[in-house]
């Protein structure tokens, strides 16, 4: 029982990342009708926002202390990050919390990148065949990746979680098991909470605001909304920016779990596409629930007991599920009729 609980918890953080990326993909697809192969790159860019913030915060002031000597006889250099020099303790906290702090940077940056992408490239592809949309975003993904690679190098750059979130949470005690059986890294639980919060925010935005209502109307029938005198294109641009922010935030917060490197986006993108297919193209709820479902199933498949029976199942479980779902329910779990069935 406790093992099952642990595996469910283990799947939640990855599932959260899948759900966030898949949600963005579905929103873009539902509004603009474009399949965005560069969405994984947006996830990656978000992660590198955290890298950049940490690098900036860590710019160090070098002072030479003539009273101390290194073992080689040269005066000792003392290096201290500027934020600590300027802000003292607050600076230290800032450094410690560099990942959550980078969210503040990631939101505007991802919004700008998203809007620039839509205005500069994607909008010219609305009327072109899906194959060309896929290809151009695929090319864009390569370009973004390579630019990041040329600045940050090809190696993963580890990002520490804040000290207070580095510990473990013992869930076993909470539900009445023995202590020490269900321990779970705190940051991963925070990530799960964060992703649910973002998902809830996106749903609330679409459900309870006028803007969201117009967007939903546009998803259902773009033409009619346009005839009513609403500039739907502009709203959709903002929606694209929003989807970029969601993917970016997913990436930023994921950095302590997985050290970001330039191709992390594509790895997640492929899985997120599978998530979208399983959930049903065009269904927001489907994308989210399939994201968590597949994340949890994947973590069950990586249990040693399961791997002993079916070696390698952890690598392919998601694809196998996609195959089964497509064979049994070709529209996905919650797919709507008429979406992507031209």
């Amino acid at each position, binding site marked *: 029982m406790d093992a099952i609980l642990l595996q469910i918890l283990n799947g939640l953080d990855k599932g959260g990342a899948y759900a966030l990326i898949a949600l963005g993909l579905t929103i873009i697809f539902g509004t603009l009708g474009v*399949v965005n192969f560069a969405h994984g790159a947006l996830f990656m860019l978000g992660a590198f926002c955290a890298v950049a913030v940490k690098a900036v915060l860590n710019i160090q002031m070098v002072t030479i202390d003539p009273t101390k000597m290194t073992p080689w006889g040269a005066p000792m250099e003392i290096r201290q990050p500027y934020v600590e020099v300027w802000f003292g303790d607050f600076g230290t906290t800032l450094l410690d919390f560099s990942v959550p702090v980078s969210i503040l940077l990631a939101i505007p940056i991802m919004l700008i990148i998203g809007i620039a992408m839509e205005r500069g490239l994607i909008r010219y592809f609305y009327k072109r065949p899906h*194959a060309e949309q*896929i290809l151009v975003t695929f090319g864009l993904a*390569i*370009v973004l990746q390579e630019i990041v690679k040329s600045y940050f190098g090809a190696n993963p750059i580890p990002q520490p979680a804040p000290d207070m979130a580095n510990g473990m949470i013992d869930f076993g005690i909470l539900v009445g098991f023995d202590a020490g059986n269900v321990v779970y890294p705190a940051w991963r639980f925070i990530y799960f909470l964060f992703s649910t919060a973002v998902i809830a925010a996106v749903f609330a935005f679409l459900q309870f605001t006028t803007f969201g209502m117009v967007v939903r109307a546009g998803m259902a029938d773009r033409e009619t909304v346009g005839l009513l005198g609403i500039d739907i294109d502009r709203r959709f641009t903002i929606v694209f920016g929003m989807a970029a922010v969601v993917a970016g935030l997913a990436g930023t917060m994921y950095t302590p779990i997985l050290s970001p490197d330039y191709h992390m986006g594509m790895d997640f993108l*492929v899985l997120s596409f599978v998530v979208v297919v399983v959930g049903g193209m065009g269904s927001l709820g489907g994308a989210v629930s399939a994201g968590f479902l597949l994340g949890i199933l994947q973590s069950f498949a990586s249990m040693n007991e399961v791997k002993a029976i079916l070696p*390698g199942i952890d690598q392919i479980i998601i694809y196998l599920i996609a195959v089964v779902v497509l*064979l049994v329910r070709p529209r996905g779990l919650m797919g709507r009729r008429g979406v992507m069935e031209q």
Partner: protein
Amino acid sequence: MFANSISKKDLLLLAVFTAAVLAGPIILKPIGAGYPDLLQKFAIYGIFALGFNILFGLTGYLSFGHAAFLGVGSYTAVWTFKLLSMNPVPAIIFATLMGGLFSALIGFISLRRSGIYFSILTLAFAQMCYNLAYSVLTPITNGETGLQLAQSDPRALDVAFGRDYGAVLPSSDLFGIEMTGYPGFYFCAVMLILCFFISMRIYRSPFGMMLRAVKSNQNRLNFTGIHTRPYALTAFVISGMYAGLAGGLLAVTDPLAGAERMQWTASGEVVLMTILGGAGTLLGPVIGAGAIKYFENIFSAFNEGILNNIFDFLPDALQHIAVSVSSMFVGEGWHLTLGALFMVIVIFLPGGLMEGVSRINNLIRRQPPDGGPGGAPHAAPAE
């Protein structure tokens, strides 16, 4: 026996193509591509792109997983070397068959959906193959190191025919001709010509017509009572076999197979080759493959020193900027150029180079004789 069913134009095209491929070492010498290693790559990736084009160009199904078949072909070929014989013929036969088998499996499932679903499914399957090759299948694929030949391999057929390679690591040879250098290229070239011929026959056949019908309007075909999936699946399997053959040839010229051949970037590359040359045209994919591999070769060789020489004529400050900007695109950064090229082609020239050629042709032809005195070449009428 085929000659009477081939039109004169096709026969001419085939003859010119054959001549051009066989004379490749001479023709490509002036642009610095006249050496066998590169020519082999042209031929092999030409085959790969030709096969991809049968699927994408004719039926419009955009597969993002063809690298998987290339990888499968490579692994099969190396295993044939290890188990049976160093002769490339059985290796490429088995590679082609394995490519076909895998594509039949993957195609059977992926082709249940069309459009974007299909692309995603093939991409997912390719990633699955890649993951498996790296992890669980390590006994077969040798994981990260890649599958290599060893002296102690059984090589049953070679032993049966009494061939002994002694204490050296054997390389593949066709009845005594080593498959490196020019013999290797000509082996690939013959395969390329054969593949070109087959794909030409497919293009002109009723089957090819049916595939084109699938692309232009699948619904209408369904309404007429034609079941399209078998046709699409056949095209998928054929293109998978082409990819398997290409993978096998890669192993023939260099008996080593690694999982990185199956990565999604490799799948993307063949899409780019096809698009760059012109999807749906006969010659386009081969030209696209050649162009990509050629530029890859050139760009990857660049380094800062060469760039400094190139931009030497600029003032120092400008030279520095020019070098640092362009060095992002060359050497290690070749993939950036590839991605940018990808976007430029899709945005401005979705029909590829072949469309570009025909556009220029049209411009020249449409020029009326009285359009302007002397008929300046830039005086094309603006529309």
